[in-house]
């Protein structure tokens, strides 16, 4: 099959229960995704705790574009294209910092952290037509919801909270596990590189079908060492007879809810270094409230995926950073919970727990994604199946009005492709105001 990637029409590649392999292997499609999907919809940029003070900034990517996310002196967030309007050099070359202005190292054009061109050396070398007001940095439309900062070029999208739909309420539930606690990033990252297309990662994020198989090593190790009852036991057997569900959050967002399988989070937690010592201290400090505090050490039992690049899994925030059609970076940001009534021992444990799945779970998934990429290069077998539970009558309208299904339902894949098609065909909305 030949693909006319210059055509805006891709619907022949996406059918009710299958999608075409070239969506994962075609470099031209990848380039279109990077301009039309990343930035063509509300796309996660950064978390407010990464830039806590006035004039803080972080350097990020939006598809292939280098961007700077800034907090101005009044606390407002900005998404700036990291590209000098003079000759094209990036103006910010640090991952993070504090700056009121960014000065291009090439000819020292200087921009404010709200994107205005502030100063040009030897300005009298330009004639009367030179207008600094027209030469500010490219800017994204930026909004945040509870610290999650998103950006887009798309002026037609509704405000962020409306766009998030039920995902906003789910984000609330994730954040409010300890009411009043502030979520903090800047606790280090586990950064993976995968020789696979970025969509293989998103495909997996709400895949309740794979854990019993792709994570056989983790499950077997736990059983051999600790017996039953510890961590992820719900992944064994016929998961569709269990209590987990998958849901469509709208606009490409998807959700796995494992919470009904977890009676007591702390008791079912994966093992972690420091467990006994800090459990004792937390119980001494908190008494009756200790059980609730220990429960927020463990992952949330929620996998909330916000199209196209933000995956909230357990206690972590994963950000998908596509590098090329067959290479993806996945950055897992560790998180801490900070509150006056929550002892910091909880975070000493959270750091260790957040190393568990990146050590014993994620690497096996990444190996399988890479093998998918290899298999998908075969031209003669064209299709990828996305039709599980499409016609079994098991889907229903569940919590928050979301279309939901048994956990092995491939509903999340179908949700993703529906949104993908909408965004890839919307034309290039790359307007940097």
């Amino acid at each position, binding site marked *: 099959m030949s693909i006319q990637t210059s055509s805006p029409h891709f619907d022949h590649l996406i059918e009710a229960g299958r999608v075409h392999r070239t969506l994962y292997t075609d470099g031209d499609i990848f380039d279109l995704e990077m301009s039309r999907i990343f930035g063509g919809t509300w796309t996660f940029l950064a978390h407010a705790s990464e830039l806590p003070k006035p004039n803080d900034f972080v350097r990020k990517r939006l598809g292939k574009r280098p961007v700077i996310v800034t907090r101005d002196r009044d606390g407002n967030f900005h998404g700036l294209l990291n590209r000098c309007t003079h000759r094209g050099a990036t103006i910010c070359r640090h991952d993070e910092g504090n700056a009121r202005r960014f000065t291009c190292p090439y000819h020292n054009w200087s921009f404010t952290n709200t994107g205005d061109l502030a100063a040009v050396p030897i300005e009298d070398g330009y004639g009367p037509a030179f207008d600094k007001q027209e030469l500010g940095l490219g800017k994204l439309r930026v909004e945040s919801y509870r610290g999650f900062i998103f950006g887009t070029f798309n002026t037609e999208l509704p405000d962020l909270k409306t766009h998030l739909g039920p995902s906003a309420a789910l984000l609330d539930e994730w954040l409010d596990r300890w009411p009043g606690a502030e979520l903090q990033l800047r*606790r*280090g*990252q*586990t*950064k*993976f*590189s*995968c*020789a696979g297309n970025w969509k293989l990662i998103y495909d997996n994020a709400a895949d309740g079908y794979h854990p019993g198989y*792709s994570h*056989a*090593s*983790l499950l*077997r*190790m736990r059983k*051999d*060492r*600790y017996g039953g009852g510890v961590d992820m036991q719900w992944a064994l057997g016929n998961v569709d007879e269990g209590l987990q569900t998958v849901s469509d959050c709208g606009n490409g967002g998807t959700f796995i809810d494992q919470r009904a399988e977890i009676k007591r989070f702390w008791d079912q937690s994966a*093992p*972690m*270094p*420091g*467990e*006994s*010592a*800090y459990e004792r*201290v937390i119980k001494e400090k908190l008494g009756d409230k200790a059980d609730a505090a220990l429960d927020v050490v463990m992952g949330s039992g929620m996998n909330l995926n916000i199209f196209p690049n933000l995956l909230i899994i357990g206690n972590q925030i994963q950000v998908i950073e596509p590098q090329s059609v067959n290479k993806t*970076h*996945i*950055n*897992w940001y*560790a998180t*801490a919970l900070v509150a006056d009534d929550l002892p910091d021992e909880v*975070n*000493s444990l959270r*750091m*260790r727990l*957040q*190393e568990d799945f990146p*050590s*014993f779970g994620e*690497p*096996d998934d*990444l*190996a*399988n994604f890479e093998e998918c990429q290899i298999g998908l290069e075969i031209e003669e077998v064209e299709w990828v199946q996305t039709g599980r539970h499409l016609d079994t009558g098991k889907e229903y309208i569940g919590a928050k009005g979301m279309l939901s299904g048994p956990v092995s339902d491939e509903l999340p894949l179908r949700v993703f492709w529906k949104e993908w098609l909408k965004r890839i065909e919307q034309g290039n909305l790359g307007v940097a105001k």
Partner: protein
Amino acid sequence: MNTDPMQDGFTLEDILRDTLESTYIDDAYYAKLRNDMQEWEGCGTVLNNEERHAYESLILHENWLLDRRAFEKWYQLYSRECVYWVPAVGDLPDAERADPQRQVTIAFDDRRRLGDRIVWLRTGVAYSQLPPSYTSHVSTAFVRLPSENAGEVKIRSQFLIQEMRAGHEIQTFSGWMGHVFIKEDGVTKIARKVVCLLDAPRNHHNLTFLL
């Protein structure tokens, strides 16, 4: 060398029966690791013959066991209260960012998690290790650092590790390691090992083998 890590009889069964509790990682232990990071910055002295015999030999043997994938024997080189620590940050030491109590790491294994890791590698269904990684560890530039902890010996070295998995390009890792040795029941054991990768803050492709 006053230990015999090549002795037979230490098997996966022994690891499965080994400690299932995590009791010794606490505030005092993290404080010790922060102090270690300062001490690693010191000016080292090259090893004398006695120190080479006792410590350099043990590090070289550790490398050999890892390269042979003899994880059960390797595990035996470590003390009962040990840590194997791979920070995820560069520019070490940095008071905030090198602190594992506040930061997530690439690996922070107490004895129990080290056991978990070996059991996990041996399941035969860890697909990130199918095919398995084969490594070549080269260590050099051994120096001894002064330490304020009585009964501990600190040895810093530079390393180069190449890793090969069938079907994948060879990966090269470099950086420095710190080993803290203690005597346990008259035998020299590794109490703490920190592996500081040159590219620690970068994205990594499959770090599931042991450094």
